[in-house]
């Protein structure tokens, strides 16, 4: 945001839009009388002087810039003077602020409001794309909301529309109870997005986070296209007219103005996704954080993005009893322990942060949460900055907001102490644009101190009596002293200028209760507590009804040292354990080291290569690559040696069909073709199944889109580098691919009624042909346009781009298929377009058409023995793999299941059992063959010199149920080691115990859910893939339960 942006934000058309009624209401409500306004004056002019001088306060001009005692002058909603030596203008209403601390008004950048305006008739086809929705035009101030914010010192809020994926633009609004004409101070502050739909859907695109990102990406391309097409239409003749699309037009204007984009994040994965989107399209992105940024602090810092940081620290995990504690993950416990340090850790890392009360159950707990963050390491100045300067700068409001400087808005917070360090400190007043809102009741005067007076003495003369008043100004305690005796005051109360109290008189020779009533008399400008001449003028009402008048004089007492209220153990509290990767269970402190030289000796090596199986062999690894394999290979000097005597070494297992490690929903099930959707956008590197599968020897996995549509999304091949970031897990050199599907799932056979095309295998065949034809047409249109530059430019269509890549052999097809008829039809369609299918997935009737598959060159990636879970797999047989293999098809066995993937070696063994495939060939079903199918066999799949050192060490034959995976290596780094795992369990158990102790000791109430925001749990299985197992069925039941 540039410095002049505020000018741009002045809404020239705003008043025109508001009816006269609003303005009348506004005048009644507002104390402003001086700013030029357009509405006629009703009744008499209100020209009350609007000048205030706050005198004697500690002024926090800006973070780190403090005037210990100074004056601030406010006039017409602006700060006109501020500093230690400021003369007070004659017209000013002077308020004594001795003992007060004044900050610039706080800015909360995380607001949201529902926009109920009807949808624009020309808003584009997809209702979740709403860049044209403007909060300013729809802003509905609510006095209860404003009041809560003011109670926390918040004077300005950024409020965004809440609905949609591209939600629209936010406005900056004050927390004064003005009509929008005055409370909207900047009409368009940012464009807001979330990278997921509101809920999973089978009908409305997008129905998954993957789809949401794809839609955002396409929309950004569409905006560029729309601008160009509109331009061509305006300037050219004889060109067709593009559609009217307010969404795209608005988006263009917003992008051109360099308005920031605020992207909401559910966790740090979403943070990095937002950042990636920003880099892809060069967008000025601010991330609305999740509170988990500390888990990947380096990546967050490296992004250079500013973060709006929530303060909804997690509540105590449910460890109420041992049974419940069983289910609480170390991740949950550690998150509870560390999360309050998130703001401090971000600040320390140099990340620009703005704090928000968003996601707090009570917005009036903002300051308490800020203090918690300060207690847990956020420097107070950084906290102040994150509530003032930074949010003001992020949204281009720094000319008017964020510090106490001349010319800035008279929005400030008056407190009775340091709001960031003193838990007892309270906001006294919040000034919003020159208007004072009392947060604490205002006392007529501070009566604390000693009051001396005399009363008539029995039998003539007078005797001295005094009152000693202390405690808090609002809640005075104290005593009355008469002679050497004293009585404690009770029922003390201030009612305007009238003070009253009572005490038990027995000790003081008044038998019974004595009441005190007095008026507080002050001279003008003498309201200060040390003012000379402050008097109490009143009487004692003695037990028998006699009134004893008195006039008391005031003396200020030396303030007693206040005890520090911060509990020591809270202040010293720091998280018990360092962040590991991923956080908690089985996470690593750092990536496993890669020895320069590594040798496995005396191993039975299943090379899956031409060397076959070697007994007593040595495998040498250099810098993560296999250097030598053989029986007579020397161990190089300095090599780390793994003695594998009696053990078996195999290539890392490759799973050609999986859905783990993704949180994008697996299926974008809403349309029959969703080629634009990318699984790679939603890799979840925290998935514990990655680690569990490493423990079963899996090193590489093909993460596929689901099977709900004929042409699904793009797959992502991963290497299971546990602890790494999602991007770092991607198999960089793996060719691109895409999921296709046939049969029952795409015609929605097992999912109630559907009328989506296709409803039959006939339709599936037609849809495929049609899609390929459309892609050809698309490619031709672009070619023509590039050659002749005539007419409207074609739209850049990510779906078509992916299909063109398929046509050109640059994107591999992995097609879910079962029955021989559909397999044959599919292959024939592809052959028509000269497309070779990379793999037929499941392919349970492959044995019926293995000759056709072999001739076509399609790989077969199958289950070893699943069958009969739905009708199209009633003819599935476990001999399928062997028969396809015999026919010359490259065959792999896959899991399609988080559990089955843990023992793919045993699935391979079933090719030996059912069909007599030789053991070494069978092992290739889960090593070399899937590598070939995925086009990565140059790098992985066998133990051959030059390939990646992805290796698994077994304590017996990998084809035996009695064997166990002992170690799993990727790129020459050990990612799983059974001995290390056992050690880590003990360490985890110790951590759990310590943290559970801490939870119980904290006395915090048990939190039953993380927060009350919507938390859809996106599917992590291909839920459309029939009921493959009892587990799958259970999963479905839970899904339905969830709906």
């Amino acid at each position, binding site marked *: 945001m540039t410095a002049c942006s505020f000018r741009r934000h002045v809404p020239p058309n705003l008043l025109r839009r508001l009816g006269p009624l609003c303005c009348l209401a506004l005048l009644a409500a507002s104390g402003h009388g001086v700013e030029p306004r357009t509405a006629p004056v009703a009744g008499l002019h209100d020209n009350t002087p609007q000048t205030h001088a706050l005198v004697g306060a500690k002024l926090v001009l800006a973070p780190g810039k403090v005037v210990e005692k100074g004056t601030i002058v406010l006039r017409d909603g602006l700060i006109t003077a501020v500093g230690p030596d400021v003369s007070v203008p004659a017209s000013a209403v002077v308020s004594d602020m001795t003992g007060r601390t004044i900050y610039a008004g706080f800015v909360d950048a995380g607001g949201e409001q529902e926009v109920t305006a009807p949808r624009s008739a020309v808003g584009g086809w997809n209702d979740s794309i709403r860049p044209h929705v403007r909060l300013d035009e729809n802003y509905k101030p609510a006095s209860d909301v404003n009041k809560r914010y003011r109670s926390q010192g918040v004077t300005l809020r950024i409020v965004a529309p809440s609905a949609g994926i591209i939600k629209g633009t936010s406005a900056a609004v004050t927390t004064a109870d003005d009509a929008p004409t005055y409370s909207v101070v900047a009409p368009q502050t940012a464009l807001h997005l979330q990278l997921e739909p509101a809920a999973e859907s089978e009908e409305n695109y997008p129905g998954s986070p993957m789809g949401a990102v794809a839609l955002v990406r396409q929309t950004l391309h569409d905006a560029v296209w729309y601008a160009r097409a509109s331009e061509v239409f305006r300037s050219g003749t004889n060109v067709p007219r593009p559609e009217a699309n307010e969404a795209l037009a608005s988006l263009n204007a917003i992008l051109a103005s360099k308005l920031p984009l605020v992207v909401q994040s559910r966790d740090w994965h979403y943070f990095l996704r937002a950042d990636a989107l920003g880099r892809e399209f060069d967008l000025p992105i601010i991330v609305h954080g999740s509170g988990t940024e500390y888990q990947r602090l380096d990546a967050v810092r490296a992004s250079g993005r500013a973060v709006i940081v929530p303060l909804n620290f997690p509540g105590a995990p449910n460890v109420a009893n041992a049974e419940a504690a069983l289910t609480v993950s170390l991740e949950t416990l550690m998150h509870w322990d560390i999360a309050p340090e998130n703001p401090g850790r971000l600040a320390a890392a140099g990340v620009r942060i703005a704090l928000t009360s968003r996601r707090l159950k009570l917005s009036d707990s903002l300051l308490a949460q800020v203090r918690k963050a300060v207690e847990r390491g956020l420097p107070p100045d950084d906290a102040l900055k994150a509530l003032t300067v930074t949010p003001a700068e992020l949204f281009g409001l720094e000319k008017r907001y964020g510090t106490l400087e001349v010319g800035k808005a008279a929005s400030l917070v008056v407190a009775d102490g340091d709001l960031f360090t003193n838990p007892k400190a309270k906001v006294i007043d919040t000034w919003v644009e020159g208007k004072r809102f009392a947060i604490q009741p205002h006392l007529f005067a501070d009566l604390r101190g000693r009051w001396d007076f005399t009363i008539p003495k029995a039998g003539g003369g007078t005797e001295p009596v005094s009152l000693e008043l202390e405690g808090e100004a609002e809640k005075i305690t104290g005593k009355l002293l008469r002679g050497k005796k004293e009585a404690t005051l009770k029922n003390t109360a201030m009612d305007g200028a009238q003070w009253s109290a009572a005490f038990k008189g027995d000790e003081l020779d008044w038998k019974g209760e004595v009441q005190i009533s007095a008026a507080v008399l002050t001279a003008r400008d003498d309201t200060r507590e040390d003012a000379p001449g402050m008097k109490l003028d009143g009487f004692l009402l003695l037990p028998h009804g006699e009134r004893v008048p008195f006039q008391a004089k005031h003396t200020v007492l030396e303030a007693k040292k206040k005890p520090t209220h911060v509990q020591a153990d809270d202040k010293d509290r720091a998280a018990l354990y360092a962040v590991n990767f991923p956080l908690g269970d089985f996470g690593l402190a750092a990536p496993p080291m890669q020895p320069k030289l590594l040798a496995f000796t005396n191993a039975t090596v299943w090379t899956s290569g031409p060397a076959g199986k070697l007994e007593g062999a040595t495998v040498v690894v250099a810098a993560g690559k296999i250097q030598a394999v053989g029986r007579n290979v020397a161990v190089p000097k300095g090599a780390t040696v793994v003695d594998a005597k009696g053990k078996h070494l195999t290539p890392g297992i490759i799973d050609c069909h999986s859905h783990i490690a993704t949180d994008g929903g697996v299926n974008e099930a809403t349309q029959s073709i969703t080629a634009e959707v990318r699984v790679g956008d939603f890799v979840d590197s925290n998935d514990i199944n990655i680690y569990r599968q490493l423990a079963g020897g899996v090193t590489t996995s093909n993460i596929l889109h689901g099977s709900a549509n004929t042409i699904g999304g793009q797959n992502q091949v991963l290497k299971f580098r546990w602890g790494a970031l999602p991007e770092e897990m991607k198999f960089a050199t793996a060719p691109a691919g895409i999921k296709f599907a046939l049969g029952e799932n795409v015609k929605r056979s097992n999912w109630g009624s559907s009328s989506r095309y296709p409803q039959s295998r006939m339709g599936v065949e037609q849809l495929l042909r049609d899609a390929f034809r459309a892609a050809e047409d698309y490619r031709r249109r672009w070619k023509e346009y590039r050659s002749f530059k005539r007419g409207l430019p074609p739209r850049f269509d990510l779906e078509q781009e992916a299909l063109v890549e398929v046509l050109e052999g640059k994107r591999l097809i992995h097609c879910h298929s079962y029955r021989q008829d559909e397999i044959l039809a599919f292959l024939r369609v592809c052959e028509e377009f000269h497309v070779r299918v990379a793999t037929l997935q499941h392919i349970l009737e492959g044995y019926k058409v293995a000759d056709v598959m072999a001739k076509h060159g399609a790989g077969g990636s199958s289950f070893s*023995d699943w069958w009969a879970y739905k009708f199209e797999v009633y003819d599935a047989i476990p001999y399928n793999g062997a028969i396809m293999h015999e026919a010359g098809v490259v065959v792999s066995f896959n899991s399609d299941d988080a559990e089955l993937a843990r023992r793919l070696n045993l699935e391979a063994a079933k090719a030996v059992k059912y069909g007599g495939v030789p053991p070494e060939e069978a092992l290739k079903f889960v090593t070399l063959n899937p590598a070939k199918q995925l086009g990565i066999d140059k790098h992985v799949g066998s133990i051959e010199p030059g390939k990646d050192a992805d290796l698994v060490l077994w304590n017996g034959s990998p084809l035996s149920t009695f064997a166990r995976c002992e170690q799993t290596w990727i790129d020459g780094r050990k990612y799983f080691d059974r001995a290390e795992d056992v050690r880590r369990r003990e360490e985890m158990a110790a951590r759990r115990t310590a943290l559970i102790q801490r939870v119980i000791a904290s006395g915090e109430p048990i939190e039953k859910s993380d927060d009350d925001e919507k938390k859809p749990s996106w599917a992590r299985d291909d839920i459309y893939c029939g009921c493959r197992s009892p587990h799958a069925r259970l999963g479905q039941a839970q899904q339905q339960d969830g709906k």
Partner: protein
Amino acid sequence: MKQLAQLLAWLVAAASTTASLAHDVVPGAPQKEPIALVGGTIHPVVGAVVENGTVLFEAGKLTAIGRDIALPKNVRKIDVRGKHVYPGMIDVDTEIGLVEIQAVRATVDDAEVGEVNPSARAVTAFNPDSELIPVTRSNGVLTAMTCPRGGLLCGLGSVMRLDGWTWEDMTVRGDAAMIVEWPALIQTQTARLEQLRIREEKRAKALEQMTGLFESARAYQKLKRARADQGAPPPDYDARWEAMLPVLEGRTPLHVRADDMRQIQSAVALARKEGVRLVIVGGYNAPECAELLRSENVAVVVKGTNRLPRYRNDPYDAPFTVPARLYKAGVKFCISASDRMANVRNLPYHAGAAAAYGLPAEEALKSVTLYPAQIAGIDKELGSLEKGKSATLIVTTGDPLDIDCEVTAAYIDGREVDLTDRHKQLRDKYQQKYQQINAARQQD
């Protein structure tokens, strides 16, 4: 070459078998003459392994196991040298015969309407012609308890021998166990508050209902007894509580499906209170309450070792080690496949995984033979190779708990089982396709 030989072997087999879609495998005829399996390695499960031994059975019963056995004159000697003989394996928690294809409703008969169906009897809906039956026994699983599911009291599970013409032929125990699904534990860590509240209410209601069910059944039992004592006519018939009488009398055990610690503890408490016999089915967290289970003498059917850890913080091998941990803690257990239908045949591999992760190999074998027989109360007839027990056994090429093992012959009550199944038939059918193609190619 080996593959070629295999292929030829199939072709020979194919010539003698007609492939077709219906389950047309003919049940074995009753044993006519004594049969002696000679020269194999005998694994009686109870007692030591016998090398180069003989198994003799007559009229469906085992009559002798060992070496140097005198064979009757009319004996049929079958040479099993180089092979192994084991008792048939048993899975006590399946839905075989009740469900053919999960996704095709017309073929699913495993659950009744409502929460309370103690009178539903699996045996009456057991389809002897299910294609799943031959596939299952092909891998050595010869006996299965087939169980209803759904609701709280699901109905009666039945132990079936996996060969025969009708369900009556195939019944070992018609009413073997009352199947109960214990209300599921709520996982508080992920659920949304509102959902959580609803589910908690549901669970509380279910738990209350569960206790109430037993009280109702008990009241019916008392009333019935009182009437009988008074010589009065019995109370109006209630099929549900009538079905619960054998449970209350301790004759039929409760098989309670429960994985979580709190489920297991509650089930044990209820069983103790009602004085009924209890078996826990599932048992993921059973090792965490081993002392309770041991002291209350409650057995556990470990519902598969090949399953995922239930909680993020659990060790990756937690499901694999459940049997080993129960064994060490002295809790009675057996292993059941995690799949209840099409892949019950993989039962032995669940035991194999348990062995790979700490269960002694001989215990692993018992956990799919003798132990399930004991838990299902059929160990007088089944579960081991002992004189007088049923001749329900398999002949194999190796250890059935490992995958490279092939079952070459099977006997159920002495009847020779045809080991053909749908999978072999389809294999043979399509081998002919490739044979025809090759033949045509050679002609060209």
